[in-house]
């Protein structure tokens, strides 16, 4: 997707969808890498990251239970991030079902990220850093939402998947 800038240059945009439990958690996730955040209707949050004047990354953050026009938007999305609270079974179930439905309908890469919050890690420290392949276009990893660097690692994992697709 692109639009023409005043000076004739073309501004390219990339769009990703961030699926999460909703509310403040989604905002915290987007704040880690989107300097510009706007509230949409309901639980929808719009974030943007201007890489430079000709390239902008747009992120839509959607709550698990929220209605969304998947048929209109899903096909043009560059990739998906779904995050959930590792210690909350309901959060995991909602995330898993949405990932399953969305990945059946669209081919864009997926990163599923489990938030450990401030709880003690559920596995040995070295396993926390695992980046687990679920398929050639889907990964699972742990992260901590309150640490911006950890959130950015999730986003970088998605970008890596996109680059691998190009190879």
């Amino acid at each position, binding site marked *: 997707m692109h639009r023409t800038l005043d000076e004739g240059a073309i501004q390219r945009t990339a769009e990703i969808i961030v699926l999460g439990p909703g509310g403040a958690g989604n905002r915290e996730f987007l704040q880690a890498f989107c300097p510009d955040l706007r509230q949409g209707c309901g639980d929808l949050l719009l974030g943007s990251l201007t890489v430079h004047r000709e390239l902008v990354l747009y992120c839509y953050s959607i709550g698990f239970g929220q209605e969304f026009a998947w048929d209109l938007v899903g096909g043009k999305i560059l990739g998906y991030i779904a995050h959930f609270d590792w210690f909350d079974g309901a959060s*995991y179930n909602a995330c*898993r*079902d949405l*990932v*399953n439905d969305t*990945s*059946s309908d669209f081919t864009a890469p*997926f990163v*599923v990220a489990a938030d450990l919050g401030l709880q003690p890690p*559920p*596995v*040995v420290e*070295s*396993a926390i850093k*695992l980046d*687990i*392949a*679920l*398929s050639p276009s*889907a990964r*699972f990893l742990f992260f901590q939402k309150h640490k911006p660097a950890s959130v950015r690692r999730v986003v970088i994992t998605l970008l890596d998947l996109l680059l691998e697709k190009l190879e």
Partner: protein
Amino acid sequence: MVLRINRKLDLVRALLSGDGLQELLGLLSPLELLEAYRFVQEKTIEFGVRVRGKKFAQEEMLAELRALGEAHAARTCPDQNRQCRLEQCLEGHPQCLREAAVTQILAMASVCRSFLHPQETS
């Protein structure tokens, strides 16, 4: 690919948390179980190599799986050759495949637990 992403996520969660694997395996069809076997084997080796490095005894684990298969075949194999070949039993002996696959997947989960949750197994 028969095993959908929700099932793979369930398997990863069960391996990492050390909980709920047996119940999950009970929900899978024989074909899904066969794919789950391959997936769990791949992940166990991946986790083992990443967490334990050269100390991870991959050959030892594979030998244990073979031994479990042979013991299962010696006990219940409906074929005359008495060898446990999971893929070959998909059509003819799905129940036998289920029992053999579940036993071996649980053995791999136990290996995972030994290095992912060492304090629980020591």
